[in-house]
């Protein structure tokens, strides 16, 4: 009896499944909320896990931005509320959480998470729902294929060419330009890309250096999990290059410089791609002269050019970061990228005059956006919306980061190695 009963249920279910409803493609997004309700922006950030060190900066910058925006009357006359979830640096969680934010909590707007893998996961969800998604920091331009994603930090459509060329141009201006370079690459998506290009375009720092007639030695790729830096340092010391290029992340350059210092060696010139900005400053003389990239450094001359508001933002950020116990409280690249992404979102809403995702995306493509730290931005879907870069080269001079290249926008002069 019981068995027959379950067989009947099974048959019914099976029939039901094979019948299957036909789904309309309409999104069924809720009716626009009453205009007095706040506009809700949803996103995740890596507040714990491997990416948390930088996630913390984006959280502070975002909170500060939203507070300022609301103080000035919000968006379309409505207040803005930011719903941020911790994705724990886990890609799978990023997709689930964005799915929830969009289809469950029906947030009005979204903004990207932090770190390239997470952004790619979020982008897929945004694309499926047709949401416009500005994001803070993604370097792998060739992979950012969705036409309504808008980067807040751009190294142009080809970072793998731009970064090395900019660096080599900069050091070529020195009285004794380097002839021999060491290239040490962290095997992480974005850093590896700048050294070696992608599957389809294998141009990168290594090939460009050779093209420019530079000797590359040694050329080392290391995994992100590297703990023993002495072998790298020893190889660099014995090769004695004129310039050490470290396409690394976080504290890689600090570990390298320290390992080299322990071996009694300091490279004449060293460049590091995406370091955490604070720790090298704590290294003292060993890190003096270190080069890196930036889209913004709050150097006095730069701030003077940008005006009062930029100075206020920088100072307020310092206060908030100090309250959050961040060790390095300067408003620089990461925070500026975050700020820019938020400004792109605001521009999209204000210029389209509403919250229609498609219209926002179209308006950004047609009109671009105005930003505090990067000026006017134009987005061309043909190059994945990666706008003309404002990236500069910075250097540690007298224990502080200053922009040194391109010369016309620099706060100080690029310094070569002290004469031997």
């Amino acid at each position: 009896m019981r068995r027959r009963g379950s067989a009947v249920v099974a048959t019914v279910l099976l029939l039901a499944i094979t019948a299957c409803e036909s789904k309309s493609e309409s999104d069924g997004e809720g009716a626009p909320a009453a205009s007095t309700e706040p506009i809700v922006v949803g996103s995740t950030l890596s507040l714990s896990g491997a990416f948390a060190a930088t996630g913390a900066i984006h959280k502070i910058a975002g909170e500060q931005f939203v507070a300022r925006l609301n103080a000035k009357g919000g968006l379309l006359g409505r207040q803005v509320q930011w719903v941020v979830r911790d994705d724990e640096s886990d890609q799978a969680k990023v997709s689930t959480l964005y799915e929830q934010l969009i289809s469950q909590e029906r947030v009005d707007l979204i903004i990207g998470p932090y770190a390239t893998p997470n952004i790619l996961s979020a982008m897929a969800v945004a694309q499926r729902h047709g949401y416009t998604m500005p994001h803070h920091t993604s370097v792998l331009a060739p992979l950012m294929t969705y036409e309504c994603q808008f980067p807040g930090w751009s190294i142009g459509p080809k970072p793998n060419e731009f970064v090395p060329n900019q660096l080599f141009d900069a050091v070529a201006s020195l009285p004794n330009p380097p002839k021999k370079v060491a290239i040490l690459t962290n095997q992480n998506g974005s850093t590896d890309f700048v050294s070696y290009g992608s599957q389809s375009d294998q141009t990168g720092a290594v090939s460009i250096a050779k093209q420019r007639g530079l000797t590359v030695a040694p050329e080392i790729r290391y995994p992100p999990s590297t703990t023993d830096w002495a072998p790298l340092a020893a190889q660099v010391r014995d090769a004695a290059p004129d310039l050490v290029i470290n396409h690394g992340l976080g504290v890689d350059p600090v570990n390298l410089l320290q390992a080299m210092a322990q071996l009694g060696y300091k490279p004449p010139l060293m460049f590091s791609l995406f370091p955490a900005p604070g720790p090298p400053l704590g290294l003292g003389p060993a890190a003096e002269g270190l080069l890196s990239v930036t889209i913004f450094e709050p150097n006095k001359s730069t701030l003077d050019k940008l005006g009062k508001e930029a100075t206020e933002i920088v100072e307020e950020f310092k206060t908030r970061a100090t309250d959050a116990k961040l060790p390095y409280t300067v408003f620089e690249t990461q925070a500026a990228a975050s700020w820019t992404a938020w400004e792109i979102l605001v521009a999209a809403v204000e210029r389209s005059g509403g919250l229609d995702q498609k219209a926002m995306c179209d308006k950004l493509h047609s009109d671009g956006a105005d930003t505090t730290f990067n000026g006017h931005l134009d987005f061309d879907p043909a190059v994945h919306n990666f706008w003309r870069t404002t990236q500069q080269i910075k250097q540690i001079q007298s224990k502080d980061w200053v922009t040194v290249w391109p010369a016309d926008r620099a706060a100080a002069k690029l310094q070569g190695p002290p004469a031997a």
Partner: protein
Amino acid sequence: MITIQSALTGLLLGGLYALMAAGVSVTWGVLRIINLAHFGMILISAYLTFQLASDWGLDPILTLAVTVPAMFVAGGALQWAYDRLGISELNSLLASFGLLIVIVQLVSNVWSADFQRMSAAVNPYATASVGIGRLVFPVTTLLAFLVAVAFIAAAELVLRRTFAGRALRAFAEDRTIASAFGIDHRRLGIVLGGLSGATAAVAGMLFALANALTPATAFEWFGIVFAVVILGGIGHLTGTLAAGLLVGALSGVVSVLLSPAAAPFVLFTAIVLALLLRPRGLFVRAAQ
């Protein structure tokens, strides 16, 4: 020359691995507790070292005066709790994993998730080194090596020469027999937990000397530390030391001769081979 230098620095760094692994090995081998919270204690010690040195301008090594007693108490208390709650070997892995998650997040709430690093002003050891000819001994890892050797040698002496040591070994072999000889396993467990906490304090200090701290680091230690613990033979301190040094030296050499990316490949393949040939741990005598 580079190869010798790398083998040497790797060997010294291996001392740090051994020191991190010693506490895990002892509690696992003797008390049957797989204590992942040990990594949390190392993490907290590292942050305390950073905090005390940066705020009070204390020499980072002197912070041990605070962290060692603190971690001794913490480790002992933890062991007391495991014992009182009657947690089994397997469940200790899970419960301490839960505890580790809590610790990592609390550390993150207190010190932020961003990189914290002692500045050169308070930490003169980071870039210092001792040289003999062309060979260089970095002070941070040299310290780790010396401490590891001294600690493990002392522990072995205690185990072999003293009554408490023999009691401990009896306890590791068979709990019921040990209790028949009047060994109070509770008190012994607490002392042992405390001692392994103390090693966590030292390991944390040594880690902070040479590295930037971020809470997620605690999870990155898992692979190498467990490799050292099992390779050395669970509960065997000399084996742990030898395994740590071997692992350090081997990855240093492979990094130079092949590439740093190949180091984990060669290292873990070597571990697999070693286990297949010496399944009781590399340095444990077969007869047992």
